[in-house]
């Protein structure tokens, strides 16, 4: 079921990504790739640069250096790439719009203004395609409900449908399940898995639960300090390797607490 790791055929290839905010270097030559049909998890401590790397790929941040290639096309820094979609932790649907309109919005990039100035202008074919995407995530029957009325897990699936409607080849997900309860998390991870398996998307997900990462992904990338620490098939990543990612952060925390206790004593 899980595709082999074929670096040569990578759909998304990120090479030498660098990004600094002021003095602070957040990404330090990050390089990785994700192939079609593959789910890759990114693990790393808070502040290790996971979100920043994804935001650079989709053009929400402008990297200082590095190239991003999708399907052989090199992206311009700081600009959106139509073939790359993103699913956020906080989902970011427009809560007052219907589920269907939210999904249609994924296609805005390829619509002229005359067919997108209002939801009333969305062409019939687009609405039909959006219904198909909603069906794919199992929510076709909720199409006309307000997006804000759905539960967290359902909203996250609508966000995936919006990404599908964008006709993306690469799906990036930044902590897609950390706001969800365990049952909803399973649903969403299953969906990501099936998008890779059945639809051939390249999926990269930032996760904070190593267990989920091991169960649902082909490869796991470990980030620390803005660069890659390991890149291994999911089965080969043991508990120690994972713990190593978070250790420096833990130590810092403990040092701070010790200092505070001393001050009190």
């Amino acid at each position, binding site marked *: 079921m899980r595709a082999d790791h074929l670096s040569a055929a990578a759909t998304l290839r990120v090479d030498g990504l660098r990004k600094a905010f002021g003095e602070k270097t957040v990404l330090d030559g990050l390089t990785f790739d994700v192939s079609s049909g593959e789910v890759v998890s990114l693990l790393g401590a808070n502040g290790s640069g996971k979100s920043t790397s994804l935001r650079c790929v989709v053009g929400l941040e402008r990297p200082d250096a590095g190239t991003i290639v999708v399907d052989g096309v090199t992206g311009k820094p700081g600009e959106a790439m139509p073939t790359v*979609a993103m699913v*956020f932790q906080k989902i*970011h649907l*427009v809560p*007052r719009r219907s589920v269907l309109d939210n999904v249609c919005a994924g296609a*805005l*990039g390829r619509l002229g203004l005359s067919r997108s100035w209002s939801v009333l202008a969305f062409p019939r074919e687009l609405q039909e395609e959006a219904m198909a995407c909603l069906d794919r995530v199992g929510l076709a029957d909720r199409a006309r409900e307000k997006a804000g009325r759905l539960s967290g897990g359902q909203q996250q699936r609508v*966000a995936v449908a*919006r990404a599908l409607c964008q006709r993306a080849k690469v799906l990036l997900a930044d902590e897609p399940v950390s706001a969800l309860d365990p049952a909803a998390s399973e649903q969403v991870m299953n969906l990501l898995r099936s998008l890779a398996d059945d639809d051939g998307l390249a999926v990269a997900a930032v996760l904070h639960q190593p267990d989920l990462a091991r169960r649902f992904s082909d490869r796991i990338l470990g980030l620390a300090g803005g660069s890659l620490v390991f890149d291994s098939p999911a089965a080969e990543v043991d508990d120690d390797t994972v713990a190593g990612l978070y250790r420096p952060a833990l130590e810092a925390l403990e040092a701070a607490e010790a200092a505070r206790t001393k001050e009190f004593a």
Partner: protein
Amino acid sequence: MSIATRPPEQAVPPRFRPSGIAVGVAITLGLIIVHWYAAVQTNTSPKELIEGWRGLWNFLFGLDKTFPNGKTIHQDGAFPLDLRWSETIRPGLEYCLLTIWIGLLGTTLSIPAALLFAIISSRTTNRFVPLWLAGRAVMSVLRAIPETVYALMFIAAVGFGAFPGVIALAIHNVAVMGKLWSESMDEVDQGPVEALRVAGASPVQTAAHAVLPAVMPSLLGLLLYRFDTNVRSSVILGTVGAGGIGFFIKTEVDSFHFDTMMTYVCMVIVLIIVIDLFSAWLRRKVGAV
């Protein structure tokens, strides 16, 4: 309890640093001097106000007095109100209606331009700095001019009546509502905006599909709030000749019919409270504050 086991009491550290006291005294002195000077310039004096209560009393309740020059004056005060139906109340209701129409048109005619300015002047929808700056500058200038000054200008330019009042309100409102709207667009959740930007949406598309749906209730709430304010302003505009009940309040004062004037004022009070309640109700209804 074992207060005795507590360590010896600590000295209370001083509340203010000397530099802090100096700054505080300087600011207080400065404020006093400015206010004292302002009071002199405007002839503000508590004595005048206390002595003046007689004048206010006469104004409100009438005057019967024989003056040193031998003349006896009778003047009707504001109370009791003039409640004649066909001479006062009915025309008063008509003038009130006209005031509402002026306030209404002054609000709604400004919507398209206010929306344009709001979109230009919000960072969420326009990241092209020169245009953004220009939008804010134009609004600042338009907003700085009070409605009555617009009214005076338009009365001088295009004639009298309700129409210049409508234009004056509309222009002022473009600037004020544009600013309020752009601020509420600035405060919108950036998440959906970023999500659509990732999907390749242009700024205009982002505004139409992420920003406007999110801010619509608060825009509507602000619109209703401005309607409220504009009806009040339209009363004021009336007193400089732009029609509506304000004009008749001034006319009655000019004819020393204080009771009729006070009747109109009471109608204004009722009118504005009713509009206040109505717009509060509607705002709750559309889910904005």
